[in-house]
């Protein structure tokens, strides 16, 4: 199937999201104080390739479920996007960004069909490496400004649906976390019953910080401790 030049997918084809364990970041509670179900999709997401009426005109009200194949991948996609990255891959994040945040390990029970946006699998939807689509997809899966991706996400959604397919979600490689793949599932057709919860780690605790440090170390990054207290602070009245 071919499409016009405005179609971001040269062909509509699907890859498999394997049934295995993934990591996802979510808040412990919503702003109204109600607890968050770690296996729920987020209809308020404004993250990469999110689709909801507040982000693009004509957009349907969908829920977004982000999950990554590694904890570092999930952390970078959701929390560390604007972290300071020093030479030697040292990561500093102001700690208020961790407040109320959790990382859940979740297991997918059956394979799902998604559209792959990372190489080499992107070739099944963009066979021509010289196509304008190639550069656009590189931007979309790497930009730190997620606002730039929302119109494109809606366009892909409409393209897939117009061709008579269900749009289950997308995948792309994490730019910062080596070998991690990030998945975005849309609800519908996302079904909570396809998933089981293994563990939830509160990130704003000493144990959570240790978990982050370990997860980042596996990806080759060093987590910087909060530079406060102790000899980081002066005595009163110091000049």
């Amino acid at each position, binding site marked *: 199937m071919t499409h016009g030049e405005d179609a971001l997918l040269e062909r509509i084809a699907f890859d498999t999201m394997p049934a295995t364990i993934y990591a996802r*970041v979510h*808040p412990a509670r*919503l*702003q109204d104080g109600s607890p968050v179900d770690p296996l729920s999709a*987020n209809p*308020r*997401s*404004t*993250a990469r390739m999110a689709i909801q009426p507040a982000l693009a005109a004509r957009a349907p009200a969908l829920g977004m479920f*982000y999950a990554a194949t590694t904890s570092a991948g999930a952390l970078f996609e*959701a*929390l560390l*996007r*604007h*972290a*300071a*990255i*020093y030479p*030697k891959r*040292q990561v*500093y994040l*102001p*700690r*208020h*960004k961790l407040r*109320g945040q959790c990382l859940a390990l979740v297991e997918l029970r059956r394979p799902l069909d998604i559209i792959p946006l*990372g*190489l*080499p*699998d992107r*070739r*099944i939807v963009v*066979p021509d490496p010289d196509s304008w689509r190639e550069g656009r997809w590189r931007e979309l*899966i*790497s930009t*730190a400004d997620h606002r730039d991706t929302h119109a494109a996400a809606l366009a892909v959604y409409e393209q897939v649906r117009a061709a008579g397919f269900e749009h289950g979600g997308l995948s792309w*490689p994490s*730019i910062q*976390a*080596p*070998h*991690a*793949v990030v998945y975005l599932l849309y609800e519908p057709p996302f079904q909570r019953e396809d998933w089981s919860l293994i563990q939830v780690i509160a990130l704003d605790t000493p144990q959570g*910080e240790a978990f982050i*440090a370990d997860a980042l*170390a*596996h990806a*080759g990054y*060093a*987590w*910087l*401790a*909060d*530079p*406060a207290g102790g*000899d*980081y602070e*002066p005595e009163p009245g*110091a*000049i």
Partner: protein
Amino acid sequence: MQDKLDKENKMGHHAYAAVYPMAGRRRDMSIHGHVAIMEIPADGDIRFGSRPLASFIRSAGAASPGLGRPDSKGVLRVFRPDSDADWLSRTEIAELEKLARKLLEATRRMDAFDQPAAAGTSPRLRQDRSPQAVRYFELFADQAVQEVRATELAERASRMLKRADQAGSSSGVLFEIEQYDPSATLRSLFEGFSRSFRAATATEAETSPVAISAPARTPVQASAALRDQLLGLGWPTSAEVGESHGSKAGNKGQWAKDRRDRGELFGVWSANERTFRHPTFQFDETGAIRPFVKELLAALSANPDFTPEADKGGWRRAFWLHGPTQALAGANGAARAPADVFATEPAAVIEAARAMTGADTHDAW
């Protein structure tokens, strides 16, 4: 020899688990040259090596000599001309990766497995009912796969080497599949090959090569080292700032303290020296405090971590101000540090400080 294979640094821990033992040249060879090999097991570590062309003379069912049978259902070996018998250069490895990617993409695009070719279409890889242990193929023009008889392999390899000598020639991809599990289908083998290839190269396709190594320091040690590194930049002390601004006070440091207390100047505590030091991005060439420093500090103080009370020593703010962040990515997409940008784009830095404070993390999941 700077361009030679660096097994440890190129692709991280997923690849280069081992390399083939290199064979020596044979003086009595009737055909000359060497062939570089990329060996991709189904779900395993990729390996590289080189073989003399003469070793491609073989009978049916004989595989290319390698390290022995890996723990896998089968392996894919991709071949290309090798310029040097003793080393594989980075360029040759990159070329092998390119060929392997081309092959995996083409076979996937063709859906080339487990079904007979329809009349009038390109030849396909087919799974027969009694798979041979070793089979040889050539991919032409990214769209046709032809099986090669074992007795023709050396001739095809020789032709490949000759084509490589002809500038501008477009050669196919010669490859070999050795199957260890007779029940495995070609489709399942290629899925395994793709997974192995993806694991070794997926992020490289989008970013620069990555070497993974565990950090040498704990988070606490790393932060202390970064603080010391920043202090080593020689930022002026309170007394030095006072002197440069012509302070007549008896305590030369008082001028800087007063500005810090009024939110007009930013300093960090140096415990060893028992004084504050002041990052130089705040000062212009004459030593005067730049415009908009006060606005920047006000924007930062809206962050609960960055108020003067929560950050008495200034180091939380210093770590944010001096760390490259994508929030201030330049035109080329590279992350930039607020301190490096402030002199020329103070508004952008102030906006990034506000955005970092105001962003609703509940929307980012």
